């Protein structure tokens, strides 16, 4: 049963509430209830965090390598990869400030677009 399976507003909202709201607030409520009873260093949490991190990383890669719409039309794959690597390198090299990484990546992307790369 996908989002497109039933062409009705109630189903689309139910889809978002179940796969979105419940799927996220579940963890938040569990976090409150467990409070400080669970150790942040627990071995299970290390594995769960690794899987979660890899999942977000897969989303990042998808947005960079297979973007949709405007980004795909305006830029080439190589320019996006070079910009992302440059931004991340600047982030790591200059004190791990997110703003530095973001502005460097956007700067390289902007220059590349202006040069028609």
């Amino acid at each position: 049963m996908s989002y497109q399976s039933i062409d009705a507003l109630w189903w689309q909202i139910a889809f978002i509430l179940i796969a979105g709201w419940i799927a996220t607030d579940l963890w938040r409520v569990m976090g409150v209830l467990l409070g400080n009873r669970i150790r942040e260093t627990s071995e299970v949490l290390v594995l769960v965090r690794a899987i979660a991190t890899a999942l977000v990383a897969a989303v990042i890669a998808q947005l960079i390598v297979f973007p949709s719409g405007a980004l795909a039309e305006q830029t080439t794959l190589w320019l996006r990869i070079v910009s992302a690597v440059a931004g991340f390198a600047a982030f790591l090299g200059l004190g791990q400030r997110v703003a530095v990484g973001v502005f460097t990546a956007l700067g390289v992307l902007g220059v590349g677009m202006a040069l028609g790369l």
Partner: protein
Amino acid sequence: MTEPAAPDDENSRAAGGFWYWYARGLREVFSLPALMLMTAFVGFAGFAREAGLPAGQVVLMTLMIWALPAKFILAAAIQSGASLVAAFIAVTLSSARLMPMVVSIVPEMRTKDTRTWVLVLLSHFVAITAWVIAMDRFREVPREWRTTFFAGLGCTLTLGNSILVGVVYGLAPNLPAELLGALFFLTPIYFLCSLWGSAREPSGQLAMVFGLLLGPVFYLLVPGVSLLVTGTVAGVAAYGAGRFARWWANRT
């Protein structure tokens, strides 16, 4: 709410009631991390629009999910025609990171009088940016006003970005294509940097590298379940490598 005398808290001041501390939290919306988050939400609005989601549902997602990676995953899952179960599992896995964040922030803002339902309500506003700002600013907030401070911060960030998402959704067709392209690019870079910073152990950073490399491969090999497969394969591999590294280091 009456102000209890708290001799164990030196920061406790008579000055500043509920609205004072609520406004102090609200003011953090004008900090750099919050502004970065807003630009990422502009990118999300455009992405969700291109994924074919109607405006009302995009705003609903922002209000009810709030965490940005989870929303991107849900929108991508909907776009790829994933089943409800697959979408639920993908979002659940991506949101597991919220639990340790909530677990660590709760002891910081709880007093012995704080009701559990207040903490449950406030926990909805926990996501990377709000958590980072709160953990940074809590030192300046007397303990009994931290829930108020976080309510001001969380409510304003969530509502503000929900309005922003609705407005940008309407504006998206009128924005120059170059600007939209750059904004769409901002989101992955923003995540790239903040994800690296939020990793607690080497296996987290390794999981990120594995996920970045394997993501596009599985996207081509197993479209539809690529996020789940990448998360599991790269995550387990990174965890295994992390354990092996610890074993290797402690071998002698």
